[in-house]
């Protein structure tokens, strides 16, 4: 299961690898330039942002081609470019970037999805007053995200990681005049910060143990065998090695960014941002950065596992992922905001990816990441198109019948929805989710995650069918009739829909190209792999589950067009559990009475201390200095000033006396001069005589 990645160190790095820094630098520079633009320069801002990202996409494609070419010649490409950033004492802070299959795949995905979403945004944000600011932030985000992807130094990764968090904050709060948006931005920032503190601890620990910040450095990097052996020899607590403990700290950071339970609370609220932001940052790329991070530091978590076995750290990752997958899918059932449903779906799918990483390895998780990026961005952009067409309405109960009003949006949305549900054969989500289920099937620790994930698949099919039934079927229940969005918005939808289907072809069990590429093995075409007994059973089971979920939801919601005020079908049968799910299982409220209440109390204590204790001390010190100043003033007035004034008076009198000599009559001066000459001459004569 854990295919060992054997890579011979490559000292030489190609010119392309040395140019890799240009990929994030382009959008970042564009963002800086746009920041200087005036607000009315809308067209220039959008052109610059799009151009820079298109440039990044071209370079990414070239890098990807380079890696694929190397791989098809049997070379596992891993080219690194490292340099020292700061040197202090004996320690160096090193930065660098890496071009390997993992970063190449992510580069192409981020820049391609990003470019499509940028194009879509030019239509979606057309009437927004802060169009240039939007593209400035989006460009900065794209640059930082590409930086995360290429980083070969955990410090560089962390810096870009924080930049990504910053742009996420800025863009969630893009419409900061809306109080919920401002609050959601703050919530996202603070919640991810909790994870980031652990991440930083992990970085410091890793640096102190291995003495390097680089991932790969020709055998001397922190996640290469030499350093791992050192880390493995040191047991930490609870049966973890130091490597596993550091890995788990980093996983805490990843959980914050990727919305894993219990740090998922910010992601649904983040939907207050503009929809292209939700699609790019909170569905396709940034939230997947956590998954990518775990894939990047995978050796830390995995090292020391026996063949076919697993480690404590990976077990934790798998359980958290599986739990999040089911947990978020349950909540998604009872939501009515079109974007919130998708947000909980994202949390759930990120759980699938984490579970895939925990149980099946890098390729399994990353394949789902890539397919999910396309179909979830597609769904979000489709939702944006729906919202745009329905005059900013977001409640699915106030929509309906849009399949005839917005045919193109409906078609693409349906493809995205089927891909997300994992509908068999034609859709990418089926293959990538199947990979995860297959990994769960073979997991040596427990079979429970397998059943959890299959149950999650049922829920996914259910809530997505419910949403589509509400939005696109039945009759229109909103205000003004909906209109189809312009081509600049539907065209990216169509492109993404194509990839939501086609991407599955590179990851089928018969031709596991993607997996072989990431693992550095040769890809073979073997149709008989379809007919392995375990796999057939699994694929049929997941198909049955998906179809069952869709039929169930269709029986309950299809073509019924319930009134917005009417209680949900499920609510009529199970009012109590529905209430729990609708209120998001009270996680926010739980945090409200624990963490937030504690901080509230602590703030009160600090306030009391400020007023009663520190203020008194500061006042006392002020008083002492006041007295000292009084004393000084007395001395100044009576002694220092008097003598100084006297001196000045004397100088002034002397000056007056001397001024009298200056008559201004030129002949007086000449006379004095002549007399002086005579006196001098006489002195010369007398001295000569003597």
């Amino acid at each position, binding site marked *: 299961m854990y295919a060992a990645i054997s890579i011979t160190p490559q000292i030489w790095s190609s010119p392309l690898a040395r140019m890799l820094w240009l990929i994030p630098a382009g959008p970042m520079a564009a963002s800086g330039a746009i920041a200087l633009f005036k607000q009315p320069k809308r067209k220039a801002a959008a052109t610059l942002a799009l151009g820079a990202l298109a440039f990044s996409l071209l370079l990414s494609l070239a890098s990807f081609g380079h890696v694929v070419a190397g791989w098809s010649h049997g070379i596992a490409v891993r080219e690194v470019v490292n340099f020292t950033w700061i040197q202090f004492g004996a320690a160096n802070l090193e930065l660098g970037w890496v071009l390997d299959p993992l970063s190449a795949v992510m580069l192409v995905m981020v820049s391609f999805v990003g470019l499509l979403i940028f194009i879509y945004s030019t239509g979606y944000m057309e009437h927004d007053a802060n169009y240039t600011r939007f593209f400035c932030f989006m460009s900065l985000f794209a640059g930082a995200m590409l930086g995360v992807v290429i980083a070969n130094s955990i410090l560089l990764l962390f810096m870009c990681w924080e930049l990504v968090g910053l742009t996420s904050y800025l863009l969630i709060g893009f419409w900061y005049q809306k109080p919920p948006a401002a609050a959601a931005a703050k919530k996202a920032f603070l919640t991810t910060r909790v994870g980031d503190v652990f991440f930083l601890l992990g970085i410091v620990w890793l640096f102190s143990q291995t003495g390097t910040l680089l991932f790969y450095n020709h055998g001397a990097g922190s996640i290469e065998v030499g350093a791992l052996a050192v880390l493995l020899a040191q047991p930490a607590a609870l049966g973890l090695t130091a490597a596993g403990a550091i890995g788990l700290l980093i996983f805490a950071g990843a959980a914050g960014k990727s919305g894993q339970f219990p740090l998922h609370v910010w992601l649904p609220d983040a939907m207050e941002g503009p929809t292209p932001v939700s699609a790019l940052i909170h569905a396709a790329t940034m939230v997947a950065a956590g998954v990518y991070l775990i894939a990047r530091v995978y050796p830390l978590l995995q090292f020391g596992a026996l063949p076919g076995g697993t480690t404590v750290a990976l077990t934790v990752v798998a359980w958290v992922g599986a739990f999040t997958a089911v947990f978020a899918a349950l909540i998604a059932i009872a939501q009515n905001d079109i974007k919130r449903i998708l947000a909980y779906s994202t949390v759930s799918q990120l759980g699938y990816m984490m579970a895939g990483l925990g149980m099946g390895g890098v390729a399994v998780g990353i394949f789902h990441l890539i397919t999910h990026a396309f179909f979830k961005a597609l769904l979000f952009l489709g939702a944006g198109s729906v919202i745009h067409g329905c005059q900013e309405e977001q409640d699915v109960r106030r929509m309906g019948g849009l399949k005839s009003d917005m045919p193109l949006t409906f078609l693409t949305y349906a493809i995205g929805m089927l891909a997300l549900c994992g509908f068999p054969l034609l859709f990418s989500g089926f293959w990538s989710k199947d990979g995860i289920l297959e990994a769960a099937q073979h997991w040596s620790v427990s079979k429970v995650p397998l059943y959890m994930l299959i149950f999650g698949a049922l829920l996914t099919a259910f809530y997505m069918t419910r949403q589509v039934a509400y939005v696109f079927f039945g009759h229109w229940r909103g205000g003004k009739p909906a209109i189809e969005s312009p081509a600049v918005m539907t065209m990216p939808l169509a492109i993404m829909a194509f990839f939501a289907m086609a991407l599955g072809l590179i990851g089928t069990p018969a031709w596991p190209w993607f997996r072989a590429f990431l693992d550095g093995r040769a890809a073979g075409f073997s149709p008989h792999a379809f007919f392995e007994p375990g796999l057939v059973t699994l694929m049929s089971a997941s198909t049955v589950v998906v179809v069952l979920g869709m039929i169930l939801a269709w029986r309950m919601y299809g073509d019924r067009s319930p009134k917005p005020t009417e209680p949900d079908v499920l609510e009529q049968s199970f009012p109590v559990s529905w209430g729990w799910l609708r209120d998001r299982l009270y996680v926010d409220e739980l945090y409200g009475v624990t963490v937030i209440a504690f901080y509230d109390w602590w703030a009160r204590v600090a306030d009391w201390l400020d007023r009663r204790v520190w203020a008194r001390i500061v006042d006392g010190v002020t008083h002492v200095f006041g007295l000292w100043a009084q004393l000084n003033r007395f001395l100044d007035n009576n002694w220092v000033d008097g003598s100084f004034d006297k001196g000045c008076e004397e100088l002034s009198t002397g000056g007056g006396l001397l*001024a009298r000599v*200056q*008559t*201004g*009559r*030129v*002949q007086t001066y*000449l*006379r004095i001069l*002549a007399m002086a000459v005579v006196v001098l001459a006489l002195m010369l004569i007398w001295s000569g005589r003597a």
Partner: protein
Amino acid sequence: MTPLGDYLLVAALVFSIGLAGALTRRNAILVLIGIELMLNAANLNLIAFWRYGSHPHPDPLTGMMFAIFSIAVAAAEAAVGLGLVIFIHRHAKTTDLDQMHRMKG
């Protein structure tokens, strides 16, 4: 040959006349003339000392060069001085030096 003392005596006389003129006259132009006289007395001394000081083999041109240099400076000075006098006259309608004491500090 006329002795050196005679030249020095004439030079001292010219210098004294010039000094007396410069000190006693009120008219700025006459003061300038006095200054010119004093300068020329100095020139006379320069030439005389050059001619007699290194007798019998005078150094070529040293004293002469000094004198020519001095004359050139005197000419420039006279030009500036007269220019100033003309401006003062235009400004104050007088060349009386006793009236010109406004630039005292």
